[in-house]
């Protein structure tokens, strides 16, 4: 496994910020979410759209009372700009169908610099 430089942490000012890099012919995008860094392949499982260039949202779940909906995990899901397929930026798994997932990669932060390992 080789470490590849992505950017300085100053490129990720707030949650939702991200940096896309070409690493040996594959596009990898590092997201900042909840203060941590997560890397996904910038390639949608559906039709190969630039997944990681899409909007970030949370999701609606049914509340404990079984009646009201609760919006939670804001900015945890990236929505492909081509057809709206969405994936959890922390796991790569689709919240709509767990059969589908995009590859994820380990991220390391050292001396203010962000790296992906692959």
């Amino acid at each position, binding site marked *: 496994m080789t470490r590849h*430089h*992505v*950017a300085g942490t100053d*490129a990720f000012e707030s949650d*939702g*910020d*991200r*940096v*896309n*890099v*070409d690493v*040996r*012919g*594959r*596009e990898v*995008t590092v997201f900042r979410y909840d203060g941590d860094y997560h890397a996904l*392949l*910038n*390639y949608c*499982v*559906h*039709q*190969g*759209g*630039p997944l*990681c*260039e*899409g*909007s*970030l*949202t*949370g999701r*609606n779940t049914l509340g404990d009372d079984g009646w009201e909906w609760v*919006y939670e995990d*804001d*900015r945890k899901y990236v*929505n492909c*700009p*081509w*057809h*709206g397929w969405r994936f959890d930026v922390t796991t790569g798994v689709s919240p709509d169908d767990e059969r*589908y*997932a*995009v*590859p994820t990669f380990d991220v390391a932060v050292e001396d203010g610099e962000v790296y992906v390992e692959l």
Partner: protein
Amino acid sequence: MSGHDDGDRGDGRDDPPRTADLPPGYDEEDPYEDAELGTYPDWWRENVELFREYGLRPYRPPRFGDGTLTTPLVEALEGELDVRIEIRTVNPQRVATCEVVVDGERVATVERSREPDGHTAYDLAAAEFEAAVREAAAPPASGDSDAG
């Protein structure tokens, strides 16, 4: 609640090049149907295998505007010039322009797009890319010497 809408770059790319009703991973062709993957460079073969593992459409490597493959040229220049070359986009949800960075210094910016067949195209000819990298890697022109 619809959540944030920070993915609209306002670049007019509203219509995706592939229809939404296609099955996941569907492709009209398999570019590797008769190929011997062992003859491909490691980076290419590993990407083909990764894409297959996750059921993605077949891997197609990124290219410069003239069709030249990006990765071999980047690796050749890094080896020859002993530099680190990065092609990256900060907050690609907002901008379509990526930057070419050589040893930490931005030397060019370039538009990039995801093409209908799934490969990424950089709107820059390979010769222009190579020239920008070589210029950045070249030692500074010698000026007046302190040694007098």
